[in-house]
């Protein structure tokens, strides 16, 4: 349909933004921080790009740049998901068996 791949990608981007809006509206304030840090861990998806840049045949300046990107993105992903889980573990409802 389109000649330009970029245009198709842009369509995907815009539709994904709308999906994001629809999925996340009405999030209760209790979950604002975990949502933020969980979403942030997902933004560590840049790790895929880092892998592709770091995985070149020779160790060039480009591969070193990729290597640094892999480290930063992995910290983002691993730390982000773990700290989110640590927070969510703490959220508890009132015990029901009070009466």
């Amino acid at each position, binding site marked *: 349909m389109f000649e330009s791949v970029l245009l198709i990608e842009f369509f995907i981007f815009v539709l994904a933004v709308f999906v994001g809006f629809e999925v996340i509206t009405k999030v209760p304030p209790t979950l604002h921080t975990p949502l933020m840090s969980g*979403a942030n861990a997902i933004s560590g998806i840049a790790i895929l790009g*880092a892998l592709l840049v770091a995985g070149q045949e020779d160790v060039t300046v480009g591969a070193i740049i990729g290597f640094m990107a892999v480290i930063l993105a992995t910290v983002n992903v691993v730390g982000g998901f773990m700290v989110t889980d640590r927070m969510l573990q703490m*959220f508890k409802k009132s015990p029901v068996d009070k009466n």
Partner: protein
Amino acid sequence: MNDFDFDLFIGALYLVAVILFVLGLKRLASPKTARSGNCIASLGMLIAVVVTLVDREIVSFELIIAGIIVGAIIGSIMARAIKMTAMPQMVAVFNGLGGAASALVAAGVFHGNISDGTDMSMDVSVTIMIGTLIGAVTFSGSLIAFGKLQEIIATRPVTFPLQKTFSLLLFVGILAMIGYLVIEPDMTVFIGLSVACLLLGILLVIPIGGADMPVVISLLNSYSGLAAASAGFVLGNVMLIIAGALVGAAGLILTQIMTKAMNRSLVNVVFGAFGAVETVSGSVDPGRETRPVREVAHEDSAVMLAYARSVIFVPGYGLAVAQAQHQLKELGALIEANGVAVKYAIHPVAGRMPGHMNVLLAEADVPYDKLYDLEQINDEFSSTDVVVVVGANDVVNPGARDDAGSPIYGMPILNVDRAGQVIVLKRSLSPGFAGIDNDLFYKGNTSMLFGDARESLVRVIAAIEDL
């Protein structure tokens, strides 16, 4: 034929990962399912990473494995060691890392194309430049936000003459460099562009004051998603584009909730520092500081709380600073055991990031169904015996509701002044981060309990136990 099957296989797994991200985010929006949502999203990430590794575009694994090991160790240590009171800083750092990774991806691709002598089409080079811009701004902006939250950098708005003009010129310079690089790819100019983008990130965040941090943090969260998406455009990788877009939207929603809770527009928060400083200096009338306030002893506070029918606690940033969440919970549980109805009222922008107070109180084992938002609880204050304000200031300032001359006029506040009695735990009478005097402190039904919040709470608890 085999090639085609392999691509299909990779694509199908990417699709699975995308679906897991969407489901994970959806579940993150409800307390019951949030933890599983986070797990589902992380499973999606694992699949996406493994799929990328088995894809044949990657030929050398040494650096990758080393990078993943180093990153995973650092990340897990940080996630375990961080104190809940320091969560805003942590989120700021992670936002910055995501941005930096995305910028580095763009830089790596640019460098690779230049050293290979690959001709870059307009599409490719423009996406590389945009990826660098968003990633670098996210990175340096987040570092400044971290510095402010950690109080390495002044938390008040930092401004200098002609700041806006300078930022604007810098932005024009960045656009010019991008234009040049699209026509004439050159590594030196590219480095110049990167430095300029980093500087822009610093200039965008440094004029923003501590109390506006919830907006900044959620905005940077959104940027970190957009940075990932722009790296996706650079690589033509749909997975990055979709995941980045989802995060961008999530951050934007939070930003919107925060600005609404402050009755300000995003433009006003990001570019309003100059105006804010002027109005604040104009509005603080030194004469008002001499008005009498009523101080209260720990023992009297104990009596008020122990014999009340209903008590609402209103925590603010001061609770995090004093690390008094456990003591607050202890006090709440103690009077609750005596038959007092206890609730917690949380203003959306209390603290330094969205949901800051909720996380702190969750850490102290306060059940989340005892925490009420502004709309849920605001009508209850008038029928409440005692309200205890712990380290909150601007979010309980009646001036925002009644005084059209107040710089924060129009910001929705918790109507604590309508309660029977108000006890304010505060270090001193100094105004809050917005620098605005608070009429609440001078009202007839308000008692001030001066001192460190944690120490005050401990003494009140002891006094109640002695009753």
